């Protein structure tokens, strides 16, 4: 279970008038518990939804309040939290750091106690699971955007985290790859928290959070949440 207790995220921001840096609120205060299998987070650009997602595996730490994953505090037990919570970025290029797919997945597996041979076998199995077995040795830059996102997913899931947080995983993909990635995410046994602009995908979730101006302004069943978000965007237009 993921629990946010009175979480506030603030940051220093340059003062346009040239004065000392100001402290601005990015998110919060937020208190909620996420137990559903599929949770979607929707919101406008800059609303704070990525900050909310990053809180869940400790990439962003709360300025005040606590975030706990299965009782582990992201501020105090960061490494243990990240072993439980995998994170998928919008741009796979930001996530893939090794020259070939098999090496990148093997990199994820380095923190597990495995021999190099076991790592290689496990990495290939993870690639095969996502239909990338024949691309294992191909340079990452030669993969299509969709294949790179699948590889990013394979790299994250190779260590079998209990939770997957995905920050707009389909934003850069075409319609075909979007469908493929959405279908894969929908079939995962893990709890999945996905930040998305795709309202059709959000409607498939068990629960939807609507984030606006650094606050969770709606939290509930998908149809109502999506309707609330649409109304919110029309008011702002």
């Amino acid at each position, binding site marked *: 279970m993921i629990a946010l207790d009175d979480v506030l995220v603030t940051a220093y921001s340059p003062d346009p008038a040239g004065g000392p840096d100001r402290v601005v609120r990015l998110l919060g205060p937020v208190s909620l518990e996420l137990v559903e299998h599929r949770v979607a987070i929707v919101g406008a650009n800059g609303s704070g939804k990525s900050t909310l997602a990053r809180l869940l*595996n*400790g*990439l962003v730490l709360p300025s005040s309040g606590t975030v706990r994953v299965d009782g582990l505090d992201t501020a105090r037990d*960061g*490494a243990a939290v*990240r*072993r439980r919570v*995998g*994170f998928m*970025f919008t*741009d796979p290029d*930001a*996530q*893939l*750091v*090794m*020259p*070939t797919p*098999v*090496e990148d997945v*093997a*990199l*994820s597996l*380095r*923190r597990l106690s495995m021999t*190099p041979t076991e*790592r*290689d076998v496990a990495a290939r199995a993870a690639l095969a699971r996502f239909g990338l077995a024949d691309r294992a*040795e191909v*340079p990452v*830059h*030669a993969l299509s955007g969709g294949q790179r996102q699948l590889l990013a997913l394979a*790299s*994250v899931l190779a*260590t079998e985290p209990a939770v997957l947080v995905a920050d707009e995983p389909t934003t850069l993909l075409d319609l075909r790859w979007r469908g493929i990635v959405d279908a894969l995410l929908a079939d995962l046994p893990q709890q999945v928290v996905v930040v998305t602009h795709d309202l059709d995908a959000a409607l498939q979730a068990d629960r939807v959070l609507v984030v606006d101006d650094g606050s969770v302004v709606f939290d509930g069943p998908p149809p109502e949440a999506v309707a609330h978000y649409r109304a919110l965007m029309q008011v702002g237009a």
Partner: protein
Amino acid sequence: MSGPIRPPWAGPLGLYHPGTSVIHRAPAGLKLALLAVFAIAVVAVRGPVSALAFLGVALLAQLVARVPWHRTTRGLVPALLTAALIGAYQWWARGWETAVEVAVDLVALVLLGAVVTATTRADTLLDVLARVARPLRHVGLSPETVALAVGLFLRTIPVLARMSLETRDAARARGLDREPRAIVVPAAVRMVAHARATGDALAARGLGED
């Protein structure tokens, strides 16, 4: 007409090329140790004849490894240009013998380095580097983190090269290709952003936290 588009430059050290040659099967630690010995010998042994002999060794390694030539020669282009420039200067300053020695030594070293990386997986290299860095544990450094840093450095070379080319294209698209500031500043900003993104990616995977 410029012909088919080539893939982006992958750096001087190239990518792993699967194979079954004796060099592929040799232990990664042995390959790195021999590369280190080769580098010391290249620097210590003087003269153009020995330099040509070292190049011969590197070429022989390339042949034995059966790595396609284009895999290593494309990566060698910048090294060849550098060698030509240094060679020209040495010829002018110290004569042709030094010029040949310095230029050929450089090409031989880069070529053998390319052969080693083309026949060794990055993951295996990280294992060796982590073993080599084990004594650093005594001064509070994590061997795995040190190995990761070196491995990432090798991976980052082609990424930085690609970013520079993309930034140049962006400047060109706005008619600013003769304005160095329009290329250098955004390229530097993007590289810093990339470093931060890579740090986030590693942190998200829980790497480098031991």
